[in-house]
């Protein structure tokens, strides 16, 4: 792992933690999931997953909503799915021209944000229910409003912001590398 990758990981982790604290008053509206996804998309699945784990390692321990080790571990490792899938998509879409298929890609990223959030929420709800001895179905159903809000907000963020951010980030990295060498 070179210096540049380390600094990018550190910057994105800091961004995740900062935006999480900034948005602490709005339950389930988070920029972190998107940042982890973009990190994976631009720098590979393992970098993405690592950003997710490190972000939760910091934010989860000093969490204003409380600290429960089982839930913390579940969120930490569930967050990696954004980075992993972002990385896999990044490899598959490396040759795609974002300007030609802007609408299709936006819809695709939006639905990916939705589905990944569904998986993330399902895993964390199951762990939460098991930890506190609540029936799993009840935990999922009674948490539905939060789940829906999380999914819809992530779908909107992924759909609208992905293309400009990825395009900008790629341009920035390319320019930095030229400058570096």
């Amino acid at each position, binding site marked *: 792992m070179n210096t540049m990758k380390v600094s990018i990981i550190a910057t994105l982790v800091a961004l995740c933690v900062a935006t999480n604290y900034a948005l602490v008053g709005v339950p389930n509206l988070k920029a972190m999931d998107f940042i982890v996804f973009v990190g994976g998309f631009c720098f590979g699945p393992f970098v993405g997953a690592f950003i997710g784990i490190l972000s939760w390692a910091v934010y989860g321990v000093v969490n204003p909503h409380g600290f429960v080790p089982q839930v913390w571990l579940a969120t930490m490792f569930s967050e990696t799915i954004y980075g992993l899938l972002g990385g896999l998509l990044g490899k598959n879409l490396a040759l795609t021209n974002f300007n030609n*298929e802007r609408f*299709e890609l936006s*819809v695709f990223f939006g639905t990916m944000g939705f*589905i990944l959030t569904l998986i993330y929420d399902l895993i964390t709800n199951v762990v939460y229910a098991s930890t506190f001895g609540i029936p799993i179905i009840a935990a999922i159903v009674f948490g539905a409003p939060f789940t*829906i809000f999380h*999914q819809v907000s992530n779908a909107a963020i992924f759909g609208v912001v992905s293309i400009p951010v990825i395009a900008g980030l790629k341009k920035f990295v390319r320019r930095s590398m030229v400058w570096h060498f």
Partner: protein
Amino acid sequence: MAFLRNKWALATLVVLCWAITASLALGYYYYQYTDLVDRIGGSPVPVNLGIDYANGTRQWFNGTKGATLHKCMIQAGWDVEVTSFGVMGLYVNSINGVEESIEESKSWGWWTWTDYGWAHGGSACDKYIVSTDETIIWYYSYVDPTTWEMTPPP
């Protein structure tokens, strides 16, 4: 990515997301509704409840209040024996000591009064939500063993 050029695939993904959201919302509101109904014990309304033993005895319990037909029967003070079939509901085996008879092919069935006469109740008594001032009768009917058709009350 060739997948992106397929408009139907993208539309399917969007519909899938919508279906998941709608299902979650449906589950949430269903649980909220059943929880509310359980807490307030339904919304009892008065009905005209009758029982006909098919031996010339017919009794009416007008103004009996309940949310479901089964609750109305209990409210009327009837001695009801039932078998539970889970989500299908309760099957009535006996009312006020009069049991169904396989030998005579007679069993209890409930009927509701309509503009066209008595209409057979389509569901288990604990699943049927009664309407205000509805007229319902339990009739100890003869059941045709070949067609399973119940004889309506006279």
